């Protein structure tokens, strides 16, 4: 199967028609400016901290609050891993596009790796809605206004992006320029973070808020470590820190420096599975598989821990109680662990 290389839409390009998450077509929004935001996380207005950002943007926007209703039915954000992101050429990236009333890209930004989007950027984009359209195009009466839909979309976009502490990796030249620009703009600073993961050292530029889990998944694309609850209750994000199991969702990446981090990607030796991985296959120790990386990391750490008491099934169950499996594959997980123990 041949794949076209994705082309990022440029300013002045006509945006392709597409179906938005609420089922409407982008084409149907012609006549209104539209802001599309791509991010990996969903916007959830019931989260207090998101609401707070929302309120802040609202207040910065003056009378914007008058037509705003936090109970609005149109909350949605665009998944940066979805087909829409691919159509816009920004798959996997955090990005913001401002389309004018003719569906032409008037402004866009791909959020630099390592940088959150700043409120100023969003407000600037909203301001751009009021600026005169390019001379070659006619502006209709509705074009300069700010529709509720636009505002809500823009706000949620901003919030979603703001919430995402820094992404990626490697301080390549572009990133460094972006970082320098952000810093000189008075932004909160990121930190140089060095993480030793599966025997390799990675240099990242991260906001201190970034959890190890997010650094692994979003920056390093080590997506084997799963985000379940994100609050230390499910164990899906379990990794090894210096050989002991730990929750990457409750570990700030900056605090994992100096530790030997092992993720599920580091468990097999090349094509040779870890004995417990092989035992999981033999014992059918999973159904959906989402908790499996965490189960494997928790159990492999226990198996190599001399102080762990695993002499009986009940002791293994107790020691593994931090790893939930909604498919309830527990008996099979237990059998797999016991088989490796006996080997």
């Amino acid at each position, binding site marked *: 199967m041949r794949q076209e290389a994705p082309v990022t839409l440029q300013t002045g390009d006509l945006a392709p028609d597409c179906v938005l998450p609420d089922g409407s077509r982008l084409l149907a929004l012609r006549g209104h400016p539209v802001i599309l935001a791509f991010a990996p996380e969903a916007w959830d207005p019931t989260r207090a901290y998101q609401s707070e950002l929302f309120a802040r943007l609202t207040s910065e926007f003056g009378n914007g609050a008058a037509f705003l209703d936090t109970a609005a039915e149109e909350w949605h954000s665009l998944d940066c891993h979805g087909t829409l992101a691919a159509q816009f050429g920004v798959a996997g990236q955090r990005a913001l596009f401002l389309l004018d009333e003719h569906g032409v890209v008037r402004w866009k930004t791909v959020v630099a790796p390592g940088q959150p989007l700043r409120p100023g950027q969003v407000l600037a984009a909203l301001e751009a809605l009021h600026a005169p359209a390019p001379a070659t195009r006619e502006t209709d009466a509705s074009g300069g206004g700010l529709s509720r839909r636009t505002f809500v979309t823009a706000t949620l976009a901003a919030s979603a992006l703001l919430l995402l502490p820094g992404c990626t990796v490697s301080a390549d030249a572009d990133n460094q320029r972006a970082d320098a620009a952000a810093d000189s703009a008075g932004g909160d600073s990121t930190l140089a973070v060095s993480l030793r993961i599966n025997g390799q050292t990675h240099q990242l530029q991260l906001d201190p808020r970034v959890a190890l889990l997010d650094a692994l998944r979003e920056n390093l694309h080590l997506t084997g470590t799963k985000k379940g609850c994100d609050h*230390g209750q499910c164990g899906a994000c379990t990794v090894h820190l210096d050989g002991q199991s730990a929750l990457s969702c409750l570990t*700030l990446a900056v605090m994992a420096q100096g530790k030997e981090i092992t993720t599920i990607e580091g468990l097999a030796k090349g094509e040779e599975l870890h004995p417990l991985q092989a035992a999981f296959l033999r014992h059918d120790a999973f159904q959906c598989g989402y908790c499996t990386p965490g189960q494997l990391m928790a159990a492999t750490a226990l198996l190599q821990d001399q102080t762990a008491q695993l002499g009986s099934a*009940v002791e293994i169950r107790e020691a593994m109680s931090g790893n939930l499996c909604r498919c309830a594959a527990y008996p099979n997980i237990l059998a797999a662990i016991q088989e490796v123990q006996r080997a």
Partner: protein
Amino acid sequence: MHPFQYQRTETADQAVAAVAQDPAGTFIAGGTSHVDLMKEGVLHPSLLVDVSGLPFKQITAHEGGVRIGAGVSNTAAATSADIRQRYPAVSEALLAGASTQIRNMASMGGNPLQRTRCPYFRDPTQACNKREPGSGCAAIGGYNHVHALFGASAACVATHPSDLAVALSALDARVQTLGPDGPRTIAFPDLHRLPGDQPHRDTVLAHGELITSIDLPAFSGRSHYLKVRERASYAYALVSCAVALEMNGSTIGRARVALGAVASKPWRVTAAEALLAGQVPTEPLFRAAADAAFADARPLEHNAYKIPMGRNLMVRALLETNGLQPLQGPAGTAFAASVGGVAGQFAVPR
């Protein structure tokens, strides 16, 4: 999560100075509770001072007892042979709490400083005087089944969630700290505060005061921790009880009993302790002590069940500590500490 500055420090003096100069600064060690609350929007420090690299990671002999560095992990403390054998209540409390991963991460200094599990504290959309002084208490008129029986105020009815703290209180552990005004020693039962009209202050620690170690005094009696929870494992206590018992021949020399999850601090039941001293241990005696312990309980709308549950738990904890009734599992393990739970369902090898 709100933005914050992050600072890693190499000495305790640096750490204390760094937090002391920022009113919204705080220490972070294991982070298991703090990072979670920051994600929930409950806490928003402007400065996190990382103390996980400080040299408080030893368990050492100290004045006939044991000194546990504040940076020792919950796992390392719980599995230390010294602690398991001499202070099984401490190992039992630790191992009956949280999960393997969290125990690996959590520090001994941080564990007693974890914040309440009151659901209204953890939800920034609700009124909570502990989270936001002056905002009110949604728990008093709300669903308060996990809340306090003792020492609560009109401002707050939250309980303290740490299992470890209950065991340390019964053993009269001492907390060594370093603050902006220098080092000091705090008797563990005095570390946590009752809410009064300042429920946002959980402990007597000053801003910028860092726990450097926890000292277990010399002790040659038996100790035990017992916990009731809603799940077999990995759940906070509904009620718990720690006992430190020293016999004098066939009579009780000294009994110390602390109840957990019934107040904003481990609740030492001194009236019951006085009643036990000098007596021959029997079940009726223990029942009388438990009645005395709960005599001044003040239940809320949904937590009166904790009174009979707590009484029965305390009787059983005393019986098991004294050996009149067998432990549910090996001393110093989660199984010894669990009521119902895993230990009740499966045979545990001894």
